[in-house]
């Protein structure tokens, strides 16, 4: 059973546009929700993370929106750039011992 469901599988955005990736979870015990960015041939890099006591967290052009009642969280990339083209993974964790990852979103930002 997929603990974290991620959509869309792929996304194409124009340069300067907003990229939005969504994730949903079932386990209300999850208490930590990180997002990762992965370039081809590299390990995933932690991008930004949020805890359920906060509804939004912003770091530069990257924002996580968190809806606890709907059990959903999303990554927004503002002013998307070609350099943002990568695969993005959401994840969820309970007590930070086990992490459950989404299936990934391949983002392409076209100039």
């Amino acid at each position, binding site marked *: 059973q997929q603990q974290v469901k991620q959509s869309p599988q792929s996304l194409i955005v124009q340069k300067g546009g907003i990229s939005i990736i969504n994730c949903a979870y079932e386990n209300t015990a999850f*208490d*930590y929700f*990180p997002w*990762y960015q992965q370039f081809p*041939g*590299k*390990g*995933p*890099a*932690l991008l930004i*993370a949020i*805890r359920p006591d906060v509804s939004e967290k912003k770091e530069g052009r990257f924002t996580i929106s968190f809806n606890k009642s709907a059990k959903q969280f999303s990554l927004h990339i503002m002013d998307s750039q070609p350099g943002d083209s990568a695969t993005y*993974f959401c994840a969820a*964790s309970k*007590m*930070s*011992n*086990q*992490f459950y*990852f*989404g*299936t*990934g979103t391949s983002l392409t930002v076209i100039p």
Partner: protein
Amino acid sequence: SQTIHQWPATLVQPVGSPLSLECTVEGTSNPNLYWYRQAAGRGLQLLFYSVGIGQISSEVPQNLSASRPQDRQFILSSKKLLLSDSGFYLCAWSASPGAGPFFGPGTRLTVL
């Protein structure tokens, strides 16, 4: 600052040969350690995780095994590789509570 190392970076092995991938973490004590596998264009599959020396939890039954002989060392092994073992192997660590996991650079394994 913390650093995670994996080696080798790439590996080509024949079917039936043994495997040993090593991961070490610097700059932290008693981390949780993880081995993930990523097939081409796919998501992250958790293989093993460890909360301490000699404590290994397996998530997926297979011909792979893991060991943690030291606090910051995690080893992935196989006695006989299968074609299906090809993939991108990622080691990761996390602190308890709440940050990470932080991934290493990965090992690209091709089994021929």
